[in-house]
């Protein structure tokens, strides 16, 4: 696969809180890179001696192998007072980075994969919701996504219908806005930042900006790690490992609308690193 439009995008390559002078060896789209803190404490990312463009934002160090045309996407909630910011830490998954994002956009698997946490039988129906590609921002948005959640929060005793909004601001990143029980009218922000190591291998860095004055930081980390580790065995057992842009071997339904919109957007922008172009 030739390197495509994704080369000029920003990718997470490490936690700011874990930066040190020794440098951490990792990879980005097949290239070995090193992430270190400079003598002045700033982040420095190099690839074969070349210094890469770097940003430090949302708890993570971001880098690009190419020449980014756009600034790293904005998450306004990251500057909102009263939120707690949670570095969930890295989890490696043997799958396409695009598959990791697609799974994050999916609610229909909640009853079977996140049983009794995010969903439960018989509440499996996916109601219609809205999806659009916002041309001005060049982002995929899914809104009015509602799904029955058996235990909405640690303190909740019963189930509620939780509302979600999904946003894809970059090919390997997604931002989820979710009903925030302690603060009606506000949204909890849960992100999935994916570092593409290779077309079929990725490091996933979840990050959160929550209104929650009750839970310990470790509880919050463990909750999100629990959810993601339930997904990991799914992601490692989907065939093919790359994300098909031609659904000829699949059967998407209206419940898969966000997935279809995400794939359409990838196809339109030529974001094909980690994608399978022809169904087989």
């Amino acid at each position, binding site marked *: 696969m030739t390197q495509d439009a994704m080369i000029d995008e920003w990718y997470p390559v490490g936690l700011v809180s874990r930066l040190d002078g020794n440098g951490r060896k990792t990879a980005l789209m097949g290239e070995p890179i090193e992430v270190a803190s400079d003598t002045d404490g700033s982040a420095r990312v190099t690839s074969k001696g070349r210094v890469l463009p770097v940003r430090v934002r949302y708890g993570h160090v971001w880098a690009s192998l190419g020449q980014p045309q756009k600034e790293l996407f904005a998450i306004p909630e990251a500057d909102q007072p009263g939120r707690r910011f949670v570095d969930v830490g890295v989890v490696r998954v043997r799958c396409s980075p695009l598959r990791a994002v697609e799974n994050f956009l999916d609610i229909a698997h909640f009853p079977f994969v996140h049983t009794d946490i995010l969903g439960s039988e018989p509440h499996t*129906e996916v*109601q219609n919701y809205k999806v659009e590609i916002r041309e001005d921002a060049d982002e995929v948005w899914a809104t009015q996504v509602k799904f029955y959640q058996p235990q909405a929060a640690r303190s909740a005793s019963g189930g509620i219908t939780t509302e979600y909004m999904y946003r894809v601001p970059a090919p390997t990143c997604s931002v989820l806005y979710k009903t925030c029980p302690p603060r009606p009218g506000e949204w909890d922000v849960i992100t999935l930042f994916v570092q593409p190591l290779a077309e079929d291998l990725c490091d996933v860095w979840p990050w959160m900006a929550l209104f929650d004055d009750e839970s310990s930081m470790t509880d919050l980390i463990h909750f999100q790690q629990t959810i993601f580790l339930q997904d990991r065995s799914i992601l490692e057992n989907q065939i093919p490992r790359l994300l098909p842009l031609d659904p*000829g071997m*699949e*059967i998407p*339904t*209206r419940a*898969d609308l966000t997935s279809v919109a995400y794939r*359409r957007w990838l*196809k339109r922008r030529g974001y094909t690193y980690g994608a399978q172009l022809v169904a087989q």
Partner: protein
Amino acid sequence: MTGQKQDQLHERMTIRGAVDSASFVPWIRRHAAKLGLRQEIRHAGPGRIELDVAGPVELIDMLEMGCSLGPIDVWVETITRTPAAGGTGG
């Protein structure tokens, strides 16, 4: 939406975009067949494919989902659906 009755709809589906591809019509037929949908291609030309389709709404939705992505050499801009008057011989 949990009732047992499956209403059979007859719809005209209009697919617009860069769809002037010999690969797309067979692709649509294959996908419709996989969904058990009766379809009839009414028009296939540069920029527009029109077909009549009959079946339960969820299945027609599924055809729309599949077609909106389609094969890699096709770019679908929009898909519109309008009621058709039982035009597929059903």
